[in-house]
């Protein structure tokens, strides 16, 4: 009884009409959290964390590089999750969630590559090397861009959702390849500084700065994806009565 009730509720919120106002309430909340966490993270990163004994000041790139790289991988996995849900349960909202996340995932993927290049030059002596970690991360950027191009190119919404979902599910194979690349191949890129199985190999104040920035990236991603999915919902459901009512409200504001 209980389980059927909670199932019913979940499916209730999977309806775009029910999710639209919730997203509108949650998005500014997560935006505020993201702003506060970013300020806290930058303060820890620049004013609390000490100079690194080996790398000097340049290591401070870590406070965006690692959170951005984590986020770029995680967002693609979330997109793959929503794609699987959409393909199997035929829920309308799922594909829109994946499409709302893609630009932000791509942005973090580019940031990871960009900051990695700027960090690599002073520490390795090269902006770019074709090693396993860097190459598989570049492939992830192309998967994001390919997904966005594919979704933008297909006019029929059902075919668009399905094609995008399949690309996501196939492309998700790349994520564990990125993550384990530093173990599986000999690469210039260092191994994981933080993992679930062993103690982190960095000072705790540096680690906490990195984790706060990672949480900020999470909150930012949630906020932006919620704002974006609201636009996608309006466009997708434009022929329904509730969107007509919603547009009438928005129209009065303009």
């Amino acid at each position, binding site marked *: 009884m209980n389980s059927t009730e909670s199932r019913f509720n979940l499916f209730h919120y999977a309806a775009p009409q029910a999710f639209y106002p919730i997203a509108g309430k949650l998005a500014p909340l997560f935006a505020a959290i993201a702003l506060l966490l970013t300020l806290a993270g930058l303060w820890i990163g620049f004013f609390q964390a000490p100079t690194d004994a080996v790398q000097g000041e340049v290591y401070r*790139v870590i406070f965006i590089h690692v959170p951005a790289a984590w986020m770029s991988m995680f967002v693609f996995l979330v997109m793959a999750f929503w794609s699987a849900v959409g393909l199997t349960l035929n829920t309308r909202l799922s594909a829109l969630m994946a499409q709302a996340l893609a630009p932000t995932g791509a942005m973090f993927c580019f940031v990871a590559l960009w900051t990695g290049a700027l960090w690599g030059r002073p520490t390795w002596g090269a902006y770019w090397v074709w090693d396993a970690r860097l190459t598989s991360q570049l492939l992830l950027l192309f998967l994001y861009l390919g997904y966005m191009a594919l979704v933008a190119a297909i006019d029929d919404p059902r075919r668009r959702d399905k094609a995008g979902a399949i690309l996501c599910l196939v492309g998700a194979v790349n994520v564990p390849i990125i993550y384990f690349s530093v173990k599986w191949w000999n690469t210039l890129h260092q191994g994981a500084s933080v993992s679930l199985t062993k103690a982190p190999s960095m000072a705790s104040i540096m680690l906490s700065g990195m984790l706060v920035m990672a949480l900020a990236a999470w909150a930012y991603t949630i906020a932006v994806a919620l*704002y974006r999915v609201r636009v996608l919902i309006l466009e997708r459901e434009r022929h329904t009565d509730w969107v007509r009512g919603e*547009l009438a409200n928005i129209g009065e504001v303009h």
Partner: protein
Amino acid sequence: MNWESWSAFWDMGGNAFYVWGSYGVTALLVIVELVQLRARRLSSTRKLFRLQRAAAGRKLSEVQP
């Protein structure tokens, strides 16, 4: 406090280009994404609003030829 002066802070131990290049481009991309998202919402709702009004006009002319 890590820094002896603000100029030491901005210099980042001689690595200003790499550190501020990383933070600057990230901040720029975040701002671009937010501006672009806002523009998309505005243009999208305006377009849907126009379509809706056009559809309402068509219906009205069907009723009163």
